[in-house]
């Protein structure tokens, strides 16, 4: 832009003054810009949430909308918290959460650490490794039931190739003992790249000079790993665990397609159990109370966790 006298005058004018004198005020624009988003979220998130809270105190059934609705106080909550089946569901969810996060952190961190050795072509391989997590869990989960088929399935064949076990002797999704592991394996296959990417960002954020200083101080590689690498990556790792924790607590699509909660109910995670109550048994009031309990649990755990995360970051 040419440096005309008029421009110099304009540049010298305080921006707040310039803003005030023309067009819509910033305040109006701010509201105009934010309002539609807030309105949409109120309509599609908050209003339904309040409705759910309301329903949770009733015996409403959505498949009988004309039936008279009775307010039954906290009875739905009482029933849920004393229901043994729900505790089994919680156990299945805990098993799934623990092992998926454990394996994803272990494999994801190792991969990130290896990729950070900066070998030739590491970008290309990173992109390829990431592919599974971007795909539709329902579609991919459905296809995994094919891979898990005894004898003809690629997974069973691979295991038999490596170990010599007869590929038709075990059923990953039909066996009560193996099904919980079948869902852990597919979730780990799908989401390890997520943990890997975050760890990689953490590793790349460590400046070289820290290692150089450690090298000059003759710190062993092992010691460098435990006193530099791990503490510096920890906040990233914790963030990855938070995301995976929330996502897997909500897990529905992948597992519903893989096992549908079976055999029996050994892989019936909370979301699947909730779906059964709400949309198969049509106990809408009961399911609403269930949903609220889940929401409070996730929200509470996530808040505690975020506090811990911030403490780690401050250090």
């Amino acid at each position, binding site marked *: 832009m040419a440096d005309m006298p008029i421009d110099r005058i304009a540049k010298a004018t305080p921006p707040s003054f310039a803003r005030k004198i023309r067009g819509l005020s910033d305040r109006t624009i701010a509201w105009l810009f934010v309002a539609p988003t807030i309105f949409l979220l109120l309509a599609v998130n908050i209003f339904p949430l309040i409705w759910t809270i309301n329903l949770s105190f009733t015996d409403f059934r959505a498949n009988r909308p004309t039936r008279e609705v009775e307010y039954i106080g906290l009875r739905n909550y009482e029933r849920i918290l004393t229901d043994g089946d729900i505790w089994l569901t919680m156990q299945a969810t805990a098993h799934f959460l623990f092992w998926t996060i454990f394996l994803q952190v272990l494999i994801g961190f190792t991969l990130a650490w290896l990729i950070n050795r900066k070998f030739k072509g*590491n970008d290309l391989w990173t992109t390829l490794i990431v592919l599974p997590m971007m*795909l539709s869990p329902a579609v*991919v989960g459905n296809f*995994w039931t094919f891979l898990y088929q005894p004898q003809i399935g690629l997974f069973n064949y691979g295991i038999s190739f490596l170990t010599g076990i007869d590929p038709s002797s075990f059923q990953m999704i039909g066996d009560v003992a193996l099904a919980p592991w079948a869902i852990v394996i597919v979730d780990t*296959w799908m989401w390890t790249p997520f943990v890997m990417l975050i760890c990689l960002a953490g590793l790349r954020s460590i400046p070289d000079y820290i290692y150089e200083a450690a090298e000059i101080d003759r710190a062993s590689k092992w010691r460098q790993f435990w006193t530099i690498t791990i503490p510096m990556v920890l906040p990233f790792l914790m963030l990855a665990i938070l995301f995976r924790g929330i996502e897997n607590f909500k897990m*529905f699509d992948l597992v519903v397609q893989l096992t549908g909660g079976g055999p029996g109910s050994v892989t019936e995670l909370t979301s699947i159990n909730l779906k059964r109550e709400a949309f198969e048994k049509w106990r*809408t009031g009961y399911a609403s109370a269930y949903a609220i309990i889940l929401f409070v649990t996730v*929200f509470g755990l996530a808040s505690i966790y975020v506090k811990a995360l911030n403490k780690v970051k401050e250090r």
Partner: protein
Amino acid sequence: MSSYSITEPSVRQKWVAGSLVIAYAVITLLPLVWILTTGFKSPVDAIAYPPKVMFEPSLEGYVNLFTTRTRVSPEQLQALPPPATWYEEIVRNRDMVIAGPSRYGERFLNSVIIGFGSTFLSVFLGTLAAYAFSRFKVPLKDDLLFFILSTRMMPPIAVAIPIFLMFRTLGLSDTHLGMILLYTAVNISLAVWLLKGFIDEIPREYEEAALIDGYTRFQAFYKVVLPQAATGIASTAIFCLIFSWNEYAFAVLLTSGTAQTAPPFIPTIIGVGGQDWPAVAAGATLFLVPVMVFTILLRKHLLRGITFGAVRK
């Protein structure tokens, strides 16, 4: 960084690390390769033991994906005029005739309409909100931003109960509009958080200069900020699109006939005695390949997208 750096891994280290990562990549990509190849297998090859790596490619899976077929007796088959097209011939070889198109095309189109519709809306609304959060003093800004994020913590099934009732009352059940609005509401949290990050990175001086040059605030937003944020907007749009594209829980609960998207449909593709795996694989291939292409295009912004902008690198 100089190549003499004492922190640079040795050639041997690189070699070992590279081979391990490539080995993992090959194993982890096998299921995807299997989807691609199964789509081109004949039903017999698809369920062969041991699993077939080499096979004679066949388009039967794709033909079955797009058609519905009925079995006819050999006598009826003899009486028919010879097949006019290559796909009719494939079907006739199985003692069947084509009865009509399958619903896959429709479901795919629904995914496209709902995906693009909700992506456009969430990016449009998200850009406006993100700009306001980035540049202005919005009262309760942090609370509002956290509220926007917290809407993502709810399991979809939990939200689905009242939404199911609400849609039924409003006549939005099983409609494109209903699904577009719903996916927009889910995506908008991601859009606002990501776009706020992108807009925060554009120096305020650009707009201030434009304002001084006589632009109104709105013009400055439109003519200065938007072009600067174009890459960010594009990658946010792809993330929203991928989410809507992959979404299953709401789709399976709230749609059935007219507005059903592809993810609930593909697992229901059945043939004789169970799932028709070549057809399922063909349907999955067509559905997954666009996302793979987008992922490769997005690779620079991937981390940011999947962490809601928390990690920017």
